[in-house]
């Protein structure tokens, strides 16, 4: 029992289960999944589908945070890749052909790869603080996206493109398979090769790992490239969900939610040890929370307040001072005969 309690994924998982239980209690239909035309529908399926963009972005963010970095530009990259893809489809003669859509998605992802390379260059080669280096693109990126769409919200009709977020494969949303693929690829690359360990060593102590012969520059650069590519795919999923490229709204605040998901999952912002499973749980927690907020009757306007309370509670739980306080209270409860112990310990 103690082992389960000590496991680092215990609290994130407990939070997710508590949320789901709360939802089920307040509305029993939450867990029900109906089958229509061989496709599954229900609140849980919605969560799986709608969490895909955040999942991709948060996975990239996990790797970047593990290297002691942070990537603020993911929302802007989403806007750019969506704008590029939809503009290509919009200007082509056959928006419904599979070839056009493939080209659009390919170019969109390629552009986001270039943006990731740019971020990585600033951080790994020029040695600029990650917050600032990615702030440059966060500011400029939406401007670029607006230029691409010429200030308008580009809307298109293209069935293959729509399929990305709204289509179904063997009864489950296609977007869910995209996020599963991303999770599996990241997990294999980071956990089945030495790369994960090297990433952690760079995050824990960059100088020591460089002296030990780890090529930290390449690893950090790669993390930003991965984050850029994943954000690009997320941007395409997002724009396919609304079938429009909105340079201002696409991925707005997603960097904050992604960071929150990573922290919720138990990866510390100070870098080093990271957990991909934790991030996955964190993303589902946030997505469940969003739908909880809607269904509990909290007015959508107040949802940021709710979000803020969650952030504050989570960071307080992770704070060392609160840990110390809890330990002291626990100790003084156990040894009530000598209450001085707690004071000495503090």
């Amino acid at each position, binding site marked *: 029992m103690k082992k389960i309690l000590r496991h680092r994924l215990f609290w994130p998982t407990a939070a997710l289960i508590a949320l789901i239980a709360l939802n089920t209690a307040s509305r029993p239909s939450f867990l029900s999944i109906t089958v229509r035309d061989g496709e599954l529908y229900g609140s849980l399926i919605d969560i799986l589908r709608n969490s895909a963009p955040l999942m991709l972005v948060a996975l990239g963010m996990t790797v970047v945070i593990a290297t002691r970095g*942070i990537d603020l530009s993911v929302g802007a990259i989403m806007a750019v890749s969506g704008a590029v893809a939809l503009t290509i489809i919009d200007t082509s003669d056959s928006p419904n052909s599979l070839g056009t859509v493939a080209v659009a998605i390919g170019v969109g992802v390629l552009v986001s790869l270039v943006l990731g390379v740019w971020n990585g260059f*600033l951080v790994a080669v*020029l*040695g*600029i*603080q990650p*917050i*600032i*280096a990615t*702030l*440059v*693109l*966060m*500011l*400029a*990126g*939406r*401007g*670029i996206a*607006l*230029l691409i769409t*010429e*200030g308008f919200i580009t809307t298109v009709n293209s069935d293959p493109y729509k399929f990305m977020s709204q289509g179904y494969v063997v009864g489950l949303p296609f977007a869910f398979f995209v996020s599963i693929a991303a999770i599996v690829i990241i997990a294999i690359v980071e956990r089945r090769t030495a790369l994960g360990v090297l990433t952690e060593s760079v995050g824990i102590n960059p100088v020591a790992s460089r002296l030990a012969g780890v090529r930290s520059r390449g690893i950090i650069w790669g993390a930003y490239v991965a984050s850029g590519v994943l954000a690009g795919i997320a941007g395409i999923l997002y724009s396919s969900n609304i079938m429009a490229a909105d*340079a201002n709204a696409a991925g*707005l605040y997603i960097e*904050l939610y992604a*960071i*929150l998901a990573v*922290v919720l999952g138990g990866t510390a*912002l*100070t870098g080093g040890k990271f957990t991909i499973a934790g991030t996955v749980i964190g993303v589902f927690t946030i997505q469940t929370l969003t739908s909880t907020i809607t269904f509990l009757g909290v*007015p959508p*306007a*107040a*949802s*940021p*307040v*709710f*979000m*803020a*309370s969650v*952030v*504050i509670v989570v*960071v*307080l739980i992770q*704070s*060392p*001072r*609160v840990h110390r306080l809890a330990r002291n209270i626990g100790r003084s409860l156990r040894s009530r005969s000598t209450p001085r112990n707690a004071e000495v310990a503090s």
Partner: protein
Amino acid sequence: MTTSIETTPRRADAATSRYRTFMNRHSSLLPTFAAIVILLVLLVGAQIAFGNFITPRNLSSLLLDNAYLVILAVGMTFVIITGGIDLSVGSVMAFTGILCAKLLADGLPAIVVVPLMILGGAAIGLLIGVLVQYFDVQPFIASLAGLFLARGLSFVVSLSSIKVEDPAILWLQSTRFQLAGWYITPTGIIALLVVAIGVYVMQWTRFGRTIYAIGGSEQSARLMGLPVARTKVLVYVISGVCGGLAGLVLTAYSGAGYPLNGVGTELDAIAAVVIGGTILTGGSGYVLGSLIGVLVYGTITSVISFMGAEQSWTRIIIGALLLLFIVVQRVIVSRADRRR
């Protein structure tokens, strides 16, 4: 001290050595000088291109249109010099602005409402400061919570914009003190006052010097017996107060409160502070530099509207400028490190 006395250096050498000494002692001024140069180049370039850019009217409106950003940037400078960051300022501005409009519409007098706005901003700042200082939360995350909180509260106050009809608030923007074509409104005076107080506090008070010391090295500041904890909390409170004041100025400027005001303004404020020569790792920077940074930002915006180009260029150019300044800072910092 060990240089030989018999060699009398020639005048040119003396000049370069004096220049070098100045540069070594005041290397932190260099980015701010660069910002001033860029501002002048922008103004002169715009004057040459358009012919009627440098007019008293245009320059006056440069300050007035960006008065709220000036106030936010001053607060942000305090936070950044301690090595922190405050993402909440844009939302705090929106929250206090809509609170002001709502309370005024409910019939409260302005004399009660304005202190309430400032208190509201200070309370959110205090929350962030306590999280940062006493619970070891990273400033980024703590102020992120502040951002969500203030944005949510402003939606709770009202979902739509509320018009302000209180004469005292409108007076702040409608009154114009004129002098030979130049004019200034009370909102502009508030902004300049905030800058003046900021400069005074940073340069000539114990509190201000403690802020620089914390940014330079928190550990050393603590060992020197400086009140680190109190100062770090107060810095966020100051930023919150500036957010409240900016809310007042923006409400007066636009004549209404709107809960979606200032989305992304925190980034503009950070960009202005960095362009003004404050180094984001803390310990070095000037409040006056941040004023210059805001003016650079405002000039770019008005140049783009003069050209009739898309405003999306503003963000791209600000991003590019930000990059330029970061690289300049990077060079300065690495040179300073090498000297050590």
